[in-house]
């Protein structure tokens, strides 16, 4: 379990400007790509998740943030070249509560992955837990590892992505699923 920071309001929009940028111009079928994915249950959070950002920690890069696709707590990107990565932030918004950014600590290998060979890498499934803070203190949350949904269940959902269908990833994911069963 770890405590992580949350930034509400319009500030989040400003902080996120220019942060994440999808596949950095890479082709979905580039053979050096890896698929990295995970899941966060945000049922106890102020908002759902509608964006996630992954930080490339090695090798250092001028554009270290990679955007992901997000669907119902599932986040994934299939463009990552070999390197080390870590979940940097989630973001969400709601009509009543505004925009939020949920920031993860830079230090530590939790929610991180070291990619030496192209492949499929599961960051894990997690659940958001709120942390009480003082009146003048910024918001905080914990994130706890959970067993469900499983890697196989999430890969099955990724197969529904229109971009995945017919790409090099469709067969790779099916192969992975067959090994997981």
């Amino acid at each position: 379990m770890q405590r992580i920071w949350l930034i509400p309001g319009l500030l989040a929009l400003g902080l996120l400007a220019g942060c994440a940028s999808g596949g950095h111009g890479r082709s979905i079928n580039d053979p050096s790509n890896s698929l990295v994915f995970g899941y966060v249950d945000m049922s106890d959070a102020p908002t759902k998740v509608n964006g996630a950002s992954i930080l490339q920690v090695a090798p250092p890069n001028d554009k270290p943030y990679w955007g992901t696709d997000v669907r119902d707590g599932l986040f994934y990107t299939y463009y990552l070249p070999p390197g080390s990565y870590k979940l940097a932030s989630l973001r969400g918004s709601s009509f009543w509560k505004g925009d939020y950014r949920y920031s993860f600590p830079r230090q530590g290998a939790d929610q991180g992955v070291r990619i030496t060979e192209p492949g499929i890498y599961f960051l894990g499934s997690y659940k958001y837990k709120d942390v009480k803070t003082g009146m003048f203190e910024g918001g905080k949350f914990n994130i706890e590892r959970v067993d469900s949904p499983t890697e196989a269940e999430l890969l099955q959902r990724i197969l529904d992505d229109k971009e995945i269908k017919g790409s090099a990833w469709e067969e790779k994911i099916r192969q992975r699923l067959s090994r997981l069963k």
Partner: protein
Amino acid sequence: MTRGFALLLALALAGCAPAPRAPVDSEQAVGSGETIVVGRVELVPPLRKGEQRLRGIGTGTYENRIFLLTDERKRALPPEPAISDFAGRIEATLGSHFFVHSRSTPFYILGGVLFLEAGSGMSRAHFPGGLRVALKPGDRAVYIGTLRYHRDEFFEITRVDVVDEYGAANAEFTKKFGSGMPLRKALMASAK
């Protein structure tokens, strides 16, 4: 960003953060009952371009610098250090010797803090401490060694060494302060 660091940053910008151990430039600046503490902090591998992203106003002073949090009392740092934990810190430029004032009494290095990101977000890395610096009354200058932190790309600390580089430190000390003041060696050691 923790409350302590948010406050430290805000207070530092306002010029009212708790004072660090002051750097020393000349022997005359060291009063009776004071010692010049000489040491160094290294990261292995060193920081690479892009690993520290300091973009907030006034955050440039944290570039390639680690804060060693100290106290005359042996204690554990809280997970989120408070403003008071930064009083008497050593602000060390990574890879370079520091020369700072201290009272001539033993103190403890409780841990280290390095700002990794400031501006579009805020994050920092923590480093382990638990080291004792054995100053004695009458010490004018003491060399405490190089604190070498080995780390991976996630800033997980894989090893901590205290390395004796007295020769290089003494040469730099003599160049800076002259040869009239001896530099006693007392390497920082595990505070058992």
